């Protein structure tokens, strides 16, 4: 993504003044230095709400067709944030770690030593979910509302983290795994979704050729595509923020 920084798309100044003023009101830091603006690379077909916040020192890049809802916060203080194509980042999502509070001026470390957040294509991140640095989220993953992805977690493709679930640090989730369940007495559980033809005793005895479990996932991704099309009209900034 680094070569694309040359074609760094300059966001409209209104957007940035608003985001910086919001952040200054949100975190009243005594130092007068403004919050650092992250070098953001946004694909022209992406839709970014004008109240989304991009802060940090490392580059942030957002791929084609991705939708970022209002009040999503993307921080790149500890490393670059790379969001792939056709993702949906919902409201109040927090990606990356917020700036360290004691020293409001973060150390200007070089991009090489940061730990990146990589979000691949067609990922859905639900409202108020938080993703901490080092996370690597593969394609077509669903992270539901209020879920928490801790540092250096790798989530395989087509996995799902259900609402409110917390993935501990340095966990590696395999592909097609569903993490669900929360609460006392029951705890978190995992489940592997069927992706191929399942030969259960029921279906074999029946003698019928069952469908692959993958078709359900394909149907979901198609629905996701339609959702994105509708959202791009809804979320798009009202005044001049249309970057198409």
């Amino acid at each position, binding site marked *: 993504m680094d070569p694309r920084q040359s074609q760094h798309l300059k966001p409209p100044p209104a957007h940035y003044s608003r985001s910086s003023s919001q952040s200054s009101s949100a975190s009243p830091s005594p130092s007068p230095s403004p919050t650092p603006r992250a070098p953001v690379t946004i694909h022209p077909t992406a839709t970014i709400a004008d109240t989304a916040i991009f802060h940090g020192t490392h580059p942030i890049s957002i791929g084609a067709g991705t939708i970022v809802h209002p009040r999503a916060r993307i921080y790149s203080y500890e490393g670059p944030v790379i969001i792939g194509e056709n993702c949906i980042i919902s409201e109040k999502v927090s990606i990356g770690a917020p700036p360290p509070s004691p020293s409001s001026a973060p150390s200007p470390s070089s991009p090489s030593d940061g730990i990146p957040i990589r979000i691949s294509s067609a990922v859905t991140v639900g409202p108020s979910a938080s993703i901490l640095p080092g996370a690597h989220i593969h394609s077509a993953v669903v992270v539901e509302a209020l879920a928490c992805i801790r540092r250096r977690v790798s989530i395989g493709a087509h996995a799902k983290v259900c609402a409110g679930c917390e993935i501990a640090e340095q966990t590696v989730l395999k592909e097609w795994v569903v993490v669900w369940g929360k609460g006392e007495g029951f705890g978190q559980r995992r*489940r592997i979704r069927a992706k191929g033809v399942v030969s259960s005793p029921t279906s074999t005895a029946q003698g019928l050729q069952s469908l692959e479990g993958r078709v*359900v996932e394909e149907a979901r991704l198609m629905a996701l595509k339609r959702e994105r099309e509708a959202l791009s009209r809804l979320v798009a900034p009202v005044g001049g923020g249309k970057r198409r």
Partner: protein
Amino acid sequence: MSRPFPYAYLSCPCADTPMPDPSRKRRSRESPQKPNPEQPHPPKVPQGNQEEDEEQEEDQTFDPRSPRSNFSLYPPEQLLYCEDCHQIKCPRCITEEIVCWYCPSCLFETPSSMVRSEGNRCARNCFNCPACTAPLAVTTLENVTGGGSQQGPWVLACGYCMWTTLDIGIKFDKPTNIRTQLFKLTDSSRGRQMSKTFTDLKSPLSTYASIDEQFAASSTESKNGDLAEPAPLDPEAQFAALKNFYKNQIAETSSSPTDPLGPDFGAGFSSPGALNRIMSLYTSSSRLSSLYGGTSKKPKSKPPVMREALTASEGLKTPAPDAEDTIIQRMVSDDCGWDGLASLEQRTFQAPDARFVEDLLPLPVLLRTKRSKRCKSCKHILVKPEFKPQSTRFRIRLIALSYIPLPTLRPLVPGAHGGLPTVSSSSLAPNLDALPPLRTVQLLLTLKNHMFDPVRVTLATPSVTPGRVASKVTILCPQFDIGANSDVWDEALQGTSVGDQRASSRGGGLYEKVAEAGKVWDKGRNWTTVVLEVVPGTLPGGTAGARRRVQQATGADVGGTTTRARGGDGISGDDDDGSDDDALPALDWSGQGQDPGPQPQQLQPDEDVLEIPVFVRMEWDSDNQIDQEQSVGRQNADTVKRELAYWMVLGVGKINPKIV
């Protein structure tokens, strides 16, 4: 007691009146009596001086800590009221009747005959996810497979954990009658060879129409079983076979017609009422003896021996010799792992041999019931819901709160009106989860009347709460009136004068308003607020040390008093109180300087919860409904003086173990 502090519970008087007495009911109809005749006169409380009548009522003081009281304490909104008996009715003094069965998911009513035959699960399209119990949705796959509109295979899919019936390799041809489709699929797969006779079985609860059919079925089935012996029965068919077998066994072994097993098991074996009779078998000793062959009385001829199921046709299931090994091999294999095993919660409602996630079948939704409720003693209907499952209305609903005042408790914050504590004064509010002992807390008790008659209320409380932790309680104004629940507009229209007056008293004298003895704190259209003064006692962890010190000086044995159980099991209440009263001053002032380390091993669970028993007695004049027809002209004689009395428990907070 899971509510946050402060709370108020009402005690249903049924705890003191074990048997519903018809004579009492009649008497109460003519001249309403006190609900519990064991308490002949309510405690007279003259102006907050409760010392004398506390001695009178000592043995009758409701103890919120006694093990029995848990069963009679209810939140006020859960109680009903019988207009015939003029009494509070708790869930223990009502009977329930099922009005209708319905599926909570599709809101379709199921006739009770069908519930009896098909079981209490939705027979239509409603299913729960076998993995996570979320409701399943019927979805089509036509988008992907490219079929026409409303065509193509259908699956059940869970929106939460993304489980689909494709996970177990099942798809449906049409989106309706999923349950029968699913039954056919699972049934034909599990017991293909012998399903001929069991395909008509819809569920394990279904019964044969006649005995002949049952015999015919078992005979043909046994033939089939001989032909294909190793074919396993599916669990439902196995259950049916076992049931048939034991029914026959009972019919054969119960030789004499007087044998209680004969009519009890044979005829009504599948009826829901059979359980009652079975239970009564074990309670009555004579039946018990006959069950075991009549050892006491006349020795019968040798009772025929009931045998167990011997063949697969009778429901015997012999697992394959390598069944366990194959299961273990499957568990060990890489594609199963921990996540492939079904959890205990998942297996609860599945077939007994479902061990893996792939074995789980979608669960039809359990039906729910609407119930009407009757008073146990007079059979008066208290609650009657609408029959339709879609409707949430009630035809009759006599909830207690429309007859008795609703008690609410809140701490009195100095310097602010109790209802609206400002931000500055909120720090002054006592922390109810850690009340400092021996420090006075003032509380506001509001009683809100929902009747259309004004009510005169008398409150009484023991001056010292029962139990080891003796807290002192004083109701500053134990006798007061509550206005009628008149038109809401009355208050609004009078609001100018009253509001001004109140505003001046609140606004000007914000800090001057001090709780006075004998005076009501505040009063509204249909509510009255009085002040309670509570001095929380010290916890036994602290008192024990003090007590030990005191009694070491006197040379008395201390073990008995400190380690005995709370709540007066075996120990009478006033003895408890008395000794605590003795110990309290010793700690109270002499023990101030010591460090009363918390000794949790001596503190019983929940003993630090400060609960105040309050006796409520209310009097009001109500229209005499019986004489209403005869006397056309309304006079004063039409009104009848009624009274109602009950105990209520106010949960104030938790006492801090440390003396601050």
